[in-house]
């Protein structure tokens, strides 16, 4: 049965129908298949089998190349058979191509049988023998030789959407197989990771309860494990980072790279900006946001020229250590006096800094009592604080 292919009953070039029979059942070797009660059409090139009405409607049917037939014989009904059915045995050679859709991929038999339930009217055996002798399919060697290559585009032309769908399905199947292997490996990995997370939780609760009982080295080691796994645990959130060589060198790198930029920009740069500039400069082996945050947090303790500062609104910036709230407020107040009033957009344009930082500067000035706000639907404006000055 693996020599049959699914196809549509459009005739090939120079193919013509010779005869047709009804109520034919296909046998795979000696075994019955489910393809029964169908129509059989013999052409000069192939044998077509289809469900009743399928061939005339042009729907999918089975085709067997006559080129695969080696020998034909009729099976004489045995003495015990009561049916009128006559069987023709076709001995077949090995299938030549494995590409297309088949009803069955492998078969242990090398022959098939056609069982004509109501007998056959025409001389089926004779016609088949004739066809095999004439080998019509070889008279036009070009189409058959090019058939394997042409089949691919031809099939697409003939089957249209169905052909495209099938090739997509095959591609998907191949991709799925490789993905499913990957998923299996992934699940195994995850199970291992899960165990480790459980253990780490028990250890960390023990650390929290009894601070002194676990040695310093072990705690440090444990924290490094948590960090490398990416487990978020309160134990790692505190001063561990100061001990880490990696973050210290990272902090120095960031300072060296950005100090001049920050000075040009008025002394502050938002961390998002820092993140972008550093990663753009690096190109490969980018830093995660957490890495940058951790590195910036230890800058102050390392007495580097830059430090991390967090505004009350939550905005985090990297600023020169020489700056603090007072000096920022002073500088902003001077600008306010110059211009009379400022909104965050105007300040941003004047100083060449981002909106967020400009807004924070104005708010800081307000906190230090240097300015007053005017909050309306037009936006937030700040005016010099005349209540205190006069």
């Amino acid at each position, binding site marked *: 049965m693996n020599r049959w292919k699914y196809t549509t009953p459009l005739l090939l070039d120079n193919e013509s129908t010779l005869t047709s029979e009804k109520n034919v059942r296909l046998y795979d070797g000696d075994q019955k298949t489910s393809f029964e009660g169908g129509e059989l059409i013999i052409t000069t090139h192939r044998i077509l089998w289809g469900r009743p009405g399928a061939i005339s409607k042009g729907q999918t049917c089975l085709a067997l190349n006559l080129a695969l037939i080696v020998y034909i014989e009729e099976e004489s009904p045995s003495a015990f058979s009561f049916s009128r059915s006559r069987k023709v045995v076709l001995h077949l050679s090995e299938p030549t191509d494995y590409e297309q859709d088949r009803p069955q991929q492998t078969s242990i038999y090398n022959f098939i049988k056609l069982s004509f339930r109501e007998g056959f009217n025409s001389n089926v055996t004779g016609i088949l023998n004739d066809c095999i002798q004439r080998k019509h399919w070889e008279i036009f060697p070009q189409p058959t030789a090019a058939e394997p290559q042409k089949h691919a585009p031809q099939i697409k032309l003939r089957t249209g959407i169905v052909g495209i769908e099938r090739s997509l399905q095959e591609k998907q199947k191949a991709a799925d197989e490789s993905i499913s292997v990957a998923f299996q490996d992934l699940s195994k990995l*995850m199970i291992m990771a899960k165990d480790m997370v459980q253990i780490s939780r028990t250890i960390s609760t023990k650390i929290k309860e009894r601070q002194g009982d676990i040695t310093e080295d072990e705690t440090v080691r444990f924290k490094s494990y948590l960090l490398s796994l990416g487990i978020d645990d309160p134990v790692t959130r505190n001063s561990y980072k100061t001990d880490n060589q990696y973050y210290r060198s990272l902090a120095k790198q960031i300072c060296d790279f950005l100090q001049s930029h920050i000075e040009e920009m008025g002394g502050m740069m938002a961390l998002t900006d820092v993140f972008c500039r550093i990663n753009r400069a690096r190109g490969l082996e980018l830093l995660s946001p*957490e890495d940058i945050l951790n590195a910036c947090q230890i800058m102050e303790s390392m007495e580097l020229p830059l430090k991390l500062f967090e*505004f009350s609104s939550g905005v985090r910036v990297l600023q020169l250590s020489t700056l603090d709230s007072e000096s920022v407020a002073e500088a902003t107040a001077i600008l306010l006096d110059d211009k009379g009033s400022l909104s965050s957009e105007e300040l941003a344009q004047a100083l060449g800094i981002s909106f967020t930082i400009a807004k924070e500067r104005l708010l800081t000035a307000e906190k230090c009592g240097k300015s007053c706000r005017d*909050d309306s639907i037009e936006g937030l404006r700040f005016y010099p604080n005349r209540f205190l000055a006069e």
Partner: protein
Amino acid sequence: MRRRAGLGAIQKHKLEQEKYKDKGNEIQENQLEQMTRQMEVFKVNLEEFATKHKNEIRKNPEFRRQFQEMCASIGVDPLSSGKGFWSVLGIGDFYYELAVQIVEVCLATNYKTGGLISLNELRTRLIKARGKGKQHQEITQDDLIRAAQKLKIFGSGFMVVPVGKGQYMVQSIPGELSMDHTAVLQQVTHSNQAFVSVGYLRRELGWEEGRAKKALDHMVDQGLAWLDLQNPSEKLYYFPSLFNACINSSN
């Protein structure tokens, strides 16, 4: 035996407690050793996995998503450090670069969106900016959301705001968006027109006039909405950040 009171019993009790504590310590140390051993094994397995499947992760967005979900379900964040175990998989670079590009796109469009951009528009712009290679095209919503959420720790206001029906807006300027404001955004997104009015909100959401007006005025204040006084019946509020989204959805 246990019911005996007196000094002896107390001392015995104390001794028991000490012994339990010591035993507990011992078990704990064993646990730490156990963990160390497991970490080694895990590292080897992870490296093996990486050599086999590194490409899958980078090329297949469905696989990436599954991977992230599994990590999240067991409490592990593979993106938390560029130097951690998970860096062998190379996914860090993918997400960090995506995060940098998200920041750039948001900054570039802030002047007209006011700091709020729809995730679809963000994705379209990113795909255009990233280049023609196929691996650059296959970024999904999930990838963007994860990369954007990483930026939250900087405090500069990066946040992903869901507006219902599977759509998201990315906020890149700090500002408080309360539940009411999010509801207004939802209404605008799903109304397929770029504006709302106080009357519209009252009809659709059943709000009182004061509540609707307050929410809308706040959004104008924040620069997220524009006021249009040309309508004779009532004021209209337009949301420039959603203009493209409207165009896309009516196509």
